[in-house]
């Protein structure tokens, strides 16, 4: 690219060549095992340096930043609509879900409310995003525990959902569909009926996974009682989403703070599990996928007619102020704290991503775990690297 960044790059590569050898060199007392940065278990690029005694972890430290792309800085030099493109890629699996809280926060500052139909579409896409997101987790969980087949089913059935998202938004992966004041387009013809069929397939997928994994004794033996998080500890680490609900905390932002989304018009249930172990976390997620299917189904039934955009100026300037809006994303609470100075671009955006908090418990959680359990625990906490590092 440019000359400066080129040279900077080269100098950096040279200087860090030694650091890359860290795999072997981090010898302290006992054995040090370095998992990552690129390791099949870490969903990308997390590195965990664990000091071992035999196969037991004495001390584990996650080393992050391999996916740090400087989001909070970049948002300061982009206009609001451009930021939407960017934030899609924070938690890359639940792409649409990333847009929503940002748009909602901006709407709050501009004191605009999206029309009911737009809210409905938002909520449906939000939940479809969750289904696609979490169903991949269910497959991936199998891979981490050694069962390769579930992940293929997950990829297979996830495609159906992605198809629907693509049909509605034009983007299979990063829709960039949410607008301040509404959504970009209306739903295409026949979409609702197709989505119903897809939901049926997804329910079958949930049953499949339920039988294949959760009904397996080895799976239970590997996950029951592993990585137990007491509710109080989890809360003080800021765990959210299914991770904290699996510890028995009945708290879901969809129900408790439905700002701008229409969950209050749907009859649904917040799933919790008292155990707080890896099994509970996985189980809660499985139930949530099922619940999401129900939510979408009901929303499809009650889809109101009407416009999909509120009146918004063509060039968006957000009035001065500060706002924080969080939604219940697939990974947990995701919020944006926007400071606006009345310009075209945010003055400061603090991105409160779920995985960052969810992972901050790992040093505490991994102490005394066995190496194979480390994998189970990491898998069950379910993080996306982009969501940690931003």
């Amino acid at each position, binding site marked *: 690219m440019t000359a400066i960044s080129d040279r900077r790059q080269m100098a950096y590569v040279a200087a860090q060549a030694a650091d890359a050898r860290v795999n*072997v060199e981090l010898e302290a007392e006992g*054995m040090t*095992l*370095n*998992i990552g940065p690129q*390791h*099949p*278990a870490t969903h990308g690029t997390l590195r965990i340096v664990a000091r071992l005694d035999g*196969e037991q972890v004495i001390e584990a430290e996650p080393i992050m930043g391999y996916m740090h792309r400087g989001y909070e800085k970049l948002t300061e030099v982009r206009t609001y609509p451009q930021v939407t493109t960017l934030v899609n890629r924070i938690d890359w699996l639940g792409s649409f879900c990333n847009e929503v809280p940002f748009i909602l926060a901006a709407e709050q500052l501009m004191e605009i409310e999206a029309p009911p139909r737009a809210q409905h579409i938002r909520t449906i896409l939000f939940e479809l995003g969750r289904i696609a997101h979490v169903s991949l987790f269910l497959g991936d969980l*199998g*891979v*981490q*525990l*050694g*069962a*390769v*087949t579930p992940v*293929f*089913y997950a990829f*297979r059935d996830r495609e159906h959902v992605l198809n629907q998202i693509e049909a509605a938004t034009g983007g299979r992966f990063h829709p960039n569909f949410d607008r301040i004041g509404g959504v970009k387009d209306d739903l295409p013809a026949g979409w609702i009926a197709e989505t119903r069929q897809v939901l049926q397939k997804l329910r079958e997928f949930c049953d499949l996974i339920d039988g*294949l*994994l959760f009904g*397996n004794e*080895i*799976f239970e*033996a*590997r996950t029951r009682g592993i990585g137990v998080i007491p509710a109080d500890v989890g809360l003080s680490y800021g765990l959210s989403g299914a991770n904290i609900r699996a510890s028995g905390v009945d708290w879901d932002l969809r129900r408790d703070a439905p700002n701008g989304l229409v969950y209050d018009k749907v009859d649904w249930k917040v799933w919790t599990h008292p155990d707080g172990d890896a099994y509970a976390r996985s189980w809660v997620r499985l139930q949530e996928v099922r619940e999401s299917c129900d939510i979408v189904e009901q929303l499809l039934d009650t889809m109101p007619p009407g416009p999909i955009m509120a009146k918004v100026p063509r060039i968006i300037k957000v009035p001065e102020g500060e706002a924080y809006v969080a939604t219940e994303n697939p990974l947990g609470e995701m919020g944006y704290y926007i400071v606006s100075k009345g310009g075209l671009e945010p003055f400061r955006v603090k991105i409160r991503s779920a995985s960052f908090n969810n992972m901050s418990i790992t040093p505490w959680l991994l102490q005394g775990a*066995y*190496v*194979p*359990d*480390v*994998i189970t625990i990491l*898998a069950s906490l379910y993080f996306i690297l982009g969501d940690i590092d931003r």
Partner: protein
Amino acid sequence: MNALLAVDVPWWGTTIIKSIAVLLVVLLPTGTVVYLYLFKMVSFMQSRLGPMEAGPYGSLQLLAEVGKNLQKEDIFPARADRNVFALAPYIVLVSTMLLAVVVPFGPNAVFTDLDTGIFLALAVSSVSVIGILMAGWASASKYSLLGGLRAAGQLIAYELPLVLAVVGVVIQAGTLNMQQIVYAQIEGEIFGFGGLGLPFVLTQFVGFVIFMIAVQAELTQVPFDMPIAESELVSGYMTEYSGMRFLMFFIGEFATAVIFAFLASVLFLGGWSIPPFVTELLGLEIDSAWFNVIGPIVMLTKMLVLTFIIYWVRFTYPRFREDQLQKFAWKVLIPISLVNIAITGLLKVVL
């Protein structure tokens, strides 16, 4: 062998023929199993197609693998112990091939008719652990070492149920000779009905199940694949291997599955024989030379059925944790197989 060829070959001739035959007996079914199960069956189970481009339906995929690996750079890690590192895959592969020496494929289609047949086979099968330990240690990598140690611990643990499961068969057949075990199954009777012979899977079902479980563990496959647990140890003791040496481990792994399936079909499924009533229908004698042709085919079929089960399990189950795996061997499999032996012995004396 000589009878099959109906020519009088000198002893060195037989030796050469036998050596080539061993290679064929190991490699051809292994190739079949890799293609059929690793590439195709699993793909179908995961609703995919598997390799399709190399040859019709991807049937030449394995040749492509070999051709490619021949060209690959042979990497030695900088701090590795080069000689040991280089030697390890050979030990694994050749010890596997030695196993095939005692397997009978027909009344005369045997390599060596050893008195201690199955005993020697079990003995040799334990040698491959050494290759794995060598690989793990010599790679100078923590993943490899951990993988090697885990593999060794596991193989030691599961060697025991493996041997004990065989003991039941040996007691019932009254011999260690593999050929005699086959004949014992042909001549056996089920409550006076000799039409099916007596495959020992009927009387030694517990032993059969234990044997197959132990085989799964000996192969270090899911649910017992801690040594090469991909999500933890990258690929265990194989992590640092590339090119041909890796291919040797790769083939060795599948060859072991094939050989153990051969052993299991000899021990439990009547080996190369077909049910005696079918033999009668065909108008054949059990010792007829025809069985030197039918036998291998029968063995291949039985082997394919057994390996199918092995790979079915492999691609469906999650894996055990190391301690659960050890517990399972010591607290479940070994006691059960000991009880099985005791009951078999008791019945043998009583009946």
